[in-house]
């Protein structure tokens, strides 16, 4: 047993760069493969007349290069290019998502801290935290927007509240798990020092919960973008990606590549949020040996 603990992979700069290059190559290869499969399936499907599970034609499967080139064209003659519009929509939806992420993260963490300290509250409230996520938020969204509107809250902030509703859940559950994770020995050690709750929270529970918290924040990053997108649609907000999806969906048969292009932008926004949290995690948890996938 008296062996030197397992060596961690050294994170030298060179190693990091080589690793990054390999990753990028892998991503490029993956995207290329996806493109190839998409176009091949469409090519074969159109010729062979595949109708199951869906009809393969130009409307259902636009060329990927058409989706990308749709971004460079103006929506109406003389207007701004689609990509410029998408940029503004993405900024707007990103703003809603960011506020929702911050709100949801803070509330979720506060809930976890309270529940970590009381078994009775945990038993009383934990089921409802799960239940909260079964409410079809899309159906409730109009009420939230109008209800908060009567209190003078701007619609985009109301959408943030909807995003926060989806965001707080993973944070609350995972942070709670993390705050309860210290093993009995570590708790006894603290007890032997007569440490009070605050000290146990700051010196033990909180650091122990960080890996759990970051796993949750990665889920929440995406959840906040989802909340912002699906909150906009029923709230009839036209300035963001959700509104654009509703719009382009109505004109799907004449311009399917616009809906696809908008979805690609949504994907990029979600990935961006995720990557920011991922990088934050790498910086903060640099020392922790846990494998956090």
């Amino acid at each position: 047993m008296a062996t030197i603990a397992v060596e961690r992979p050294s994170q030298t700069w060179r190693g990091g760069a080589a690793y990054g290059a390999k990753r990028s190559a892998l991503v490029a290869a993956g995207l290329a493969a996806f493109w190839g499969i998409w176009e091949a399936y469409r090519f074969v499907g159109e010729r062979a007349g595949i109708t199951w599970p869906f009809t393969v034609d130009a409307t259902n499967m636009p060329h990927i290069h058409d989706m990308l080139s749709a971004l460079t064209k103006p929506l109406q003659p003389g207007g701004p290019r689609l990509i410029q519009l998408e940029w503004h929509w993405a900024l707007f939806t990103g703003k809603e998502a960011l506020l929702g992420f911050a709100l949801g993260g803070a509330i979720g963490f506060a809930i976890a801290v309270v529940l970590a300290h009381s078994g009775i509250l945990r038993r009383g409230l934990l089921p409802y935290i799960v239940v909260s996520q079964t409410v079809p938020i899309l159906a409730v969204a109009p009420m939230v927007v109008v209800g908060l509107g009567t209190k003078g809250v701007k619609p985009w902030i109301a959408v943030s509240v909807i995003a926060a509703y989806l965001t707080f859940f993973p944070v609350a559950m995972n942070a709670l798990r993390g705050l309860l994770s210290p093993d009995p020995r570590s708790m006894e050690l603290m007890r032997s020092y007569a440490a009070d709750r605050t000290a146990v929270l700051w010196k033990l529970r909180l650091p122990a919960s960080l890996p759990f918290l970051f796993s949750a924040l990665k889920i929440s990053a995406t959840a906040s973008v989802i909340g912002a997108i699906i909150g906009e649609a029923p709230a009839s907000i036209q300035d963001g990606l959700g509104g654009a999806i509703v719009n382009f969906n109505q004109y799907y048969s004449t311009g399917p590549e616009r809906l696809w292009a908008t979805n690609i932008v949504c994907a990029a926004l979600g990935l961006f949020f995720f990557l920011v949290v991922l990088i934050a995690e790498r910086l903060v948890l640099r020392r922790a040996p846990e494998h956090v996938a």
Partner: protein
Amino acid sequence: MNDRPAVHIKGVSKQFKAGVTALSGIDLEVRPREFVSLIGPSGCGKSTLLRIIGDLIEPSAGAVEVNGKPAHRARLDHDYGIVFQEAVLYDWRTVAKNIALPLELLRWGREKRARRVEELVELVELQGFEDHHPWQLSGGMQQRVSIARALSFDPALLLMDEPFGALDEMTRERMNLELLRIWDASGSTIVFVTHSIPEAVFLSSRVAVMSRRPGRIAGIVEVDLPQPRSARTREEPRFFELVTEVRERLAAGGLELEPAEEAS
């Protein structure tokens, strides 16, 4: 200082909720500056007794006094330094910060902390590893960190639960000598749990032999080997006699041939 016992265990019993009687009717006195070992078969309640002394769990009956105070009071007064079988270090803290943890909780200033940590690192011979994380250390080094942490605030009483159980024989013998040196230098009282008869005899001033469940004290062996002990001590005939005596007591206690009264 005075002659009231450092630890006074009075009629302690412990039943767990599951219906297990772990301890029954334990009486034991530990004098200040004494080194007492608890030894007994697995599951006889040694860890349980240690945790009751440390006020980590409550006895079902009886009471424990430490330096004339109830155990609870003693814990709040920071009278205990505890060392577990595993080192129980915090992965997110460096060696120096792990050692400083109790000092932070006692609100020592930064500089005072740093000075004390430096002394302790020297005491447990870990110079150069202050900024390492626990997972970069060997098992023996980790255990030395946890001993340094337990000593950091000069607790009146050190409670050690098989602290060297996971170490190889060589390291273990060296750690034994180090522990005696530290004990001598720090002037604290030690209650030590072990499975190893030679270790108990080598370290202790008295060995309390416990019997199988429900745990009782089956006998106490006075270790009259001269202080300070050294590697030589292990070769003395008296050492072997005492080892044999403890072994016989253990065998007898295990079969519950002798009643507990003959102790002390």
